[in-house]
C-alpha cells in the first residue's frame, strides 16, 4: 500500500533521513514507529504526507507518487504530534472546514466525536481549548473520512487515561477492519497491545522492521517494552 524507496532528506546541512526503504502492505496491521528523539520519525511521516519534500527518493501510495498527487492523501487520516488549529475557529466550524475540503464524502465517521463528547464544546473556539482537548479534536478528525491508512504521531501525549482508552479501542477496532495504522510513541508500553509490527529508527536509519511475534522470539521477552530495552542495552554495550 505504501512503498518508500530510498528516501533522503536534508534540512540544509542536517541529514535527517539517510536512505529509508520500507513497504507497508494493506490490512490488519498496526505498525509502531519507535526511536529516540530526533531520529527522523516525524520527518518520515511528513514525507508520506508530502508536508516535507524528500531530497532524494520517492513515496508511492497505492501506485501514486505522494509528491505529485494530492489524491494520495484521500487515503490517509493524520493526527499530528502537536496539533495547531486556527485559533478563532470554533470546534464545530473546524469540523465543517475539513468536511468542506471533501464534499464528496457524505458518510463520515463521527464515533470519536461523540465518545469524546466534543458535541458539548462545539461552540468553543480552538484557542480556548486545553492541550488534551485539542488532541481529541485532532484524533476525531483523523478517523473522520474512514481512511485506509491512519497515521498517528504521538497520539496519547496529553490525553487523560479515559480518553487514551477510548482512542486505543478505536485504533484496535479500525485495525480489525483491515486498516493500516502507523503510530509513533515515546512511551513504548502504550503500544504493547496495539502494535503488530515494530519499526525501530535511529539517526535517520531503520534498524529493524519486524513483526512483534518475531521480535519477542528473538529477544526472549514478553512485552515490546522489554524487547526494546534489551536491544537498546545490547547496542549500548557493543
Amino acid at each position: 500500500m505504501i512503498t518508500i524507496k530510498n528516501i533522503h532528506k536534508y534540512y540544509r546541512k542536517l541529514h535527517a533521513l539517510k536512505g529509508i526503504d520500507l513497504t507497508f502492505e494493506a490490512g490488519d496491521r498496526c505498525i509502531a514507529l519507535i526511536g529516540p528523539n530526533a531520529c527522523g520519525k516525524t520527518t518520515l511521516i511528513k514525507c508520506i504526507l508530502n508536508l516535507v519534500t524528500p531530497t532524494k527518493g520517492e513515496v508511492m501510495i497505492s501506485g501514486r507518487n505522494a509528491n505529485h498527487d494530492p489524491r494520495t492523501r484521500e487515503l490517509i487520516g493524520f493526527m499530528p504530534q502537536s496539533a495547531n488549529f486556527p485559533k478563532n475557529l470554533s470546534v464545530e466550524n473546524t469540523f465543517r472546514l475539513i468536511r468542506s475540503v471533501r464534499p464528496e464524502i457524505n458518510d463520515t465517521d463521527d464515533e470519536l466525536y461523540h465518545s469524546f463528547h466534543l458535541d458539548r464544546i462545539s461552540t468553543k473556539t480552538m484557542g480556548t481549548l486545553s492541550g488534551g482537548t485539542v488532541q481529541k479534536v485532532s484524533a476525531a478528525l483523523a478517523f473522520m473520512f474512514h481512511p485506509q491508512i491512519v497515521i498517528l504521531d504521538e497520539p496519547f501525549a496529553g490525553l487523560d487515561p479515559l480518553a487514551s482508552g477510548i482512542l486505543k479501542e478505536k485504533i484496535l477496532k479500525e485495525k480489525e477492519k483491515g486498516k493500516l495504522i502507523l503510530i509513533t510513541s515515546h512511551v513504548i508500553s502504550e503500544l504493547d497491545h496495539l502494535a503488530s509490527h515494530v519499526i525501530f529508527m535511529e539517526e535517520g536509519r531503520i534498524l529493524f522492521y519486524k513483526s512483534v511475534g518475531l521480535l519477542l522470539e528473538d529477544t526472549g521477552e514478553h512485552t515490546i517494552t522489554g524487547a526494546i530495552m534489551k536491544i537498546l542495552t545490547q547496542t549500548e554495550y557493543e
Partner: protein
Amino acid sequence: MNNIARIIFFDILKSKITFVYFIVLALVSWISFLLEESLSKGLLTVTYIVLFSVPLMALLYSTIYIYNSKEFITLLLSQPIKRGKLWSSLYAGVSTSLCMAFLLGAGIPILIYSFNGTGFLIIAMGVGITLISASIAFLIAVMTDDKSVGIGLSILCWLFFTLLYDAIMMFLLFQFSDYPIDILTVLLLMLNPVDLARLQIMMQLDVSAMLGYSGAVFTHFLGSTFSTILSFIFLIAWIVIPYRISLKIFGKKDIA
C-alpha cells in the same frame, strides 16, 4: 470563490484591523474632500494618501496573515488538497477582503465626489496597488520562515517603494544629468509600481506640474496613450510575477 477562500475572506472581514483600516480610509477621504476648496485638489490629496497608506496596510497585513495562518495551512495540507489551490485561495481571500475595505472606505467618497474617469482610475489604482502589495507580501512570507524578519522586510519594501525609490532616482538623475538618460529614467519609473500608479493618476488629472521630471520624460517619450497601455501591462506584471514565484516556492516548501 471556493470554500477556503470564502472562509478566509469572512475571517478577515470579522477582524478589528480591517475595520480600523476601513474607518481610517473613509475618514481621511471624506475629510480631504470636505476641506480642500477645489475638487482636483481634493482628488490629489486622496491620491497621495491612498498611494501612501494602501501599500503599507496591504504589505504588512498580508505578511502577518500568512505567518499567523501557519496552523491553518498545515491542517489543510494534510488533506487531499493541491498546494496551488490552497495558496491561490489564501491570496484570493486576503486580497479580496483588503480590496473590499478599500472600496468601502475610500471608493465611496471618491465616486460620490468624482463620478467620472478620474474617480474610477484612482479606485482602479488603489485596487491594483493592493493586489501588488499582497502579491509581494506573499513572496516575502514564503521566502522567510522567521516572522519578525518577514515583517521587517515588508516594512522595508514599503519604505523603499514609497520614499526611498524616489530619492535614489532623483539622486541618479542629478548625478548623470549631463548624459542622455531618458530611457533609463523611464525604465526606473516602470520598476516602481507606486510611481506607475501615481503617474497614471497625474496624467489623468492633467497636472503636469505634479508629474515631476520622470513623469514629463515618460509622457514625452512615449505619448500618453502608449504610456498608459505600457504602464497597465507593468502593473499587471507586478501582480502576476511575485505571486507566481511565491506559488512555485510554496509548492516545494517543507511545512515544519
